[in-house]
């Protein structure tokens, strides 16, 4: 029988001060759970009580939820698909009762553009963040757990690519794409350079974890490397991965916005960066058309603030060192 780390450790992560990863408690095999778990409080109440202690997470989630509501309610209120396209409204209109956020020079109505663009920013971020983190996790675990030549190769590749300015490489990749760019292709372009940091950090975490007693026990019990990685190491890294994922989403959104603002993003569906590209192209700043760049700017600020707060909140769960005193 293979013992699982979760069988031998407390479910509460990060009880000791062993760094940024929630280390499992090296308890006696088959030992009883601490008394506090014997009288389990209702899950909702525990969650709410915890959220009270973690206002940054609450604030971040509220902002992100607000953005989700913005596009959900907006799409429900108006035909955003038709009204966000060029020629759907008179050009260069200031915000008015008819055009709430005004129109741009090509005749796009800017409120529907924002309603359409916001979920696309999420989509690119989530997709690229997920793919980047997935690749980083696989490579990080492989390098950290197996070590040796594999570690040298993967680590070397990540270290080589890390100092290269990602945006410069992304510009080259995006400008050589021959097919029409879509949000999904864009996400994969961004993801292609979003795996190095997760690889390095996860490798470092795995290096410390693989020496712990519960991993040793699992190994002695005959668990395969696959089993140890997926059943012992990965569950213990989940809170850390969650916090990393939010950061990765933020980084991916930033990279995609950079490409879009340079005119290298998808041009045929409204995105925040594309709106900024055209506002720069037509000199909206110079011409005093604040409504053109103002809307995307507000959404971008909210999006990054929300992601930052959620990442900070999750970091508190994952990393006890930054946990505030209760």
């Amino acid at each position, binding site marked *: 029988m293979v013992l699982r780390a979760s069988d031998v450790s407390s479910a509460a992560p990060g009880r000791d001060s062993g760094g940024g990863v929630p280390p499992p408690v090296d308890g006696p095999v088959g030992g009883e759970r601490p008394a506090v778990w014997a009288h389990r409080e209702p899950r909702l109440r525990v969650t709410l009580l915890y959220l009270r202690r973690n206002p940054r997470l609450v604030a971040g989630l509220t902002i992100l939820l607000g953005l989700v509501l913005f596009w959900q309610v907006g799409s429900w209120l108006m035909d955003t698909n038709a009204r966000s396209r060029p020629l759907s409204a008179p050009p260069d209109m200031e915000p008015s009762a008819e055009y709430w956020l005004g129109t741009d020079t090509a005749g796009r109505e800017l409120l529907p553009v924002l309603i359409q663009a916001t979920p696309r920013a999420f989509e690119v971020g989530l997709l690229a963040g997920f793919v980047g983190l997935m690749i980083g996790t696989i490579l990080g675990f492989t390098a950290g757990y197996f070590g040796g030549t594999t570690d040298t190769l993967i680590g070397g590749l990540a270290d080589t690519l890390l100092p290269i300015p990602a945006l410069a490489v992304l510009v080259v990749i995006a400008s*050589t794409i021959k097919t029409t760019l879509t949000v999904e292709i864009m996400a994969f372009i961004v993801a292609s350079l979003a795996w190095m940091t997760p690889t390095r950090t996860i490798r470092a975490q795995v290096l410390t974890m693989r020496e712990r007693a519960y991993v040793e026990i699992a190994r002695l019990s005959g668990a395969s490397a696959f089993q140890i990685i997926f059943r012992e190491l990965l569950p213990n890294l989940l809170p850390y991965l969650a916090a990393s994922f939010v950061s990765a989403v933020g980084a991916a959104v930033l990279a995609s916005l950079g490409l879009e603002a340079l005119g290298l993003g998808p041009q045929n569906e409204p995105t925040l960066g594309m709106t900024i590209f055209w506002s720069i192209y037509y000199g909206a700043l110079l011409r005093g058309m604040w409504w053109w760049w103002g809307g995307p700017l507000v959404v971008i600020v909210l999006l990054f603030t929300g992601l930052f707060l959620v990442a900070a909140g999750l970091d508190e769960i994952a990393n006890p060192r930054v946990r505030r005193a209760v």
Partner: protein
Amino acid sequence: MDHGTDEIRDHRADEPGTRMTPTRRVTSRRRFLAAGVAGFSAALLAACSQPPAPAKPAEAAKPAEAAKPAEAAKPAVTAPAQQPAEAAKPAAPAQQAPAQPVAAGQVATIPRNRTLIPAGLGGEHPGGFTDIDNFNQYLPGLSRSGYTQAGTEGLFYYAPLNNEFKPWLAEGYQFGNDFTELTLKLRKGPAWSDGTPFTAKDVVFTFEMLANEPTLLNGADVKRQVKSMQMIDEQTVNFTLNFKNPRFVFDLLTFRADVALPIAPEHVWKGQDPKSFKNYDPSKGWPLTTGPYKLVATNVEQKLWDRRDDWWGSKTGFSPPPKVERLIFLPGMNEITMAQKMIANEIDMAFSFTPGNMRAVQQQNKKIITHSDQPPYGFMDWWPIALGFNNSEKPFDDPEIRWAISYAINRDQIIKFAFQGFNQVSALPYPDFAGLRPYMDAAKPLLEKYDTLAYDLKKTDEIMTRKGYKKDAQGMWTGSDGNKVSIPIITFPQHPSTTPQAPVVTEQLRQAGFDATFQLPADYGARIRTGEAKAYLYGHGGSMREPFSTWDRLYHMRHVKPTGTDNNGQNIYRWSNKPFSDIVDQMGQMAEDDPKLMDLWLKSLEIWLPELPDVQLVHTVIPVPMNTTYWTNWPSAKDPYVHEGFWHRNALHMILKLQPVS
């Protein structure tokens, strides 16, 4: 430690030549830090107290100044900038150091008010030059960053706005034997920048080089047109042509817009492989020029050309020397950057502005003028825009599909949305120049029958239905194979005549049921030349005073190459039609004033119009902002001595006429 001794040692440590010993380490470090902070603060203060730099020229001069430490001790010239008598001297406060003779690899200081800074070229090389060390004009893709305008001179020049033909390096020409022979007479006096005279030897060498390498720019033209050449004397060349060719001088030897072949110095190019020779070696003064400027610096950010005081034109009295002492060409950049530089007087002229930006810039800097103060503000360029296709690819190989696409486009809406009203529609691929108007007028009856400007969605529907396409649930035309009619359009990332149209045209086509998309790739030029681009927004650069050149360059079947092969930008539509090409060949054998030319023009139109190789859209009207802070006597609608397209080969004539304000 004895404090008194320490103090004494510290004083000694400050004396020049005194070495610090380990026993004074603690105090010395403190003193070192204090001295460092003081030094840094002083440097910072000095930097902050410098007058504002006059944009690029002073910056460009810095390395040279740094390389000459001895000059730092020289008294700086601090004369006020506005005195006319100071014209030849450095005057403005920021240009205090007197101009020094330029040693190899160094750049002299030249005042801002003697420097002309054009930015943006024709939209190419956005963000930075990529041809830093390549000055081979016979290779495609070279930036228009001074060499073709200020370094190279034409044998002849033609200015379309005032219909002026001007002999320059050549004195004249004489056709003989029914346009199959030509005697070219060169001017006596022109010389290369290394002192070698410019002679018939250079002309003959250039033509032979091009004839042997048809892949070079103009190479195929020379090979096709020229049978043999003979140098009669240093100023005379006889050409024997392969066929009757009355346009030989105008087409190949006359600088206008971006075309006609430049002459290479035989003593530099001989023995070089013209396909790989870079023509750049500062130690040898390469690239050699006959023009009034020589290259002094080239990098990603800028190209600097300084006036040559030994220019043949001023030495022989042919032309007064230009007042512009330095030219700084900046690469393609976005409009807002150019607008900001224009407002701050950092540049003197910029590539075309969209009307909104032009108004905004003029509101903030009253010194900015443009071609005209009346709409459409700019000058008429030779480059009417069309939606082009690779006609050798399906479904664009079908003329009816091309017409269906043409009927789906509302040109008035393009002008309203993309150009804020400031442009005009273009029914045929010809600019609205005086010389061409009789031909355009004669084409009107045919255009009534084949209305290239018609916007008629019913006709689009009728053609598409007849061709077997059906609209799907989203209203998109779908073929029997279930595929939509995809129109993937590409165009320049930053071009005021094509880029703004991209979203508008794309949306119009989508509304008509075509699956249109657009992209703004940096390698748009290569994709169009190789046919990799299926559809693109691009202009026609051809005729200026009669219709032959556009037909011959852009629609003649001899230029058609398989998709994937670069065709040097000729017949980019890959449209192949033998009867049409035969008529064009006949037109090519007629003199421009031959009355039969009009008949052939109409005959060719009768073939071209039903085929419609590309969908006609609007003209290119280019409003170039020009700054009167430092320079005046700019070209204008009132005095169109040349057009102000500084990226074109005629730019030399503008540079020669500019006058400094102070």
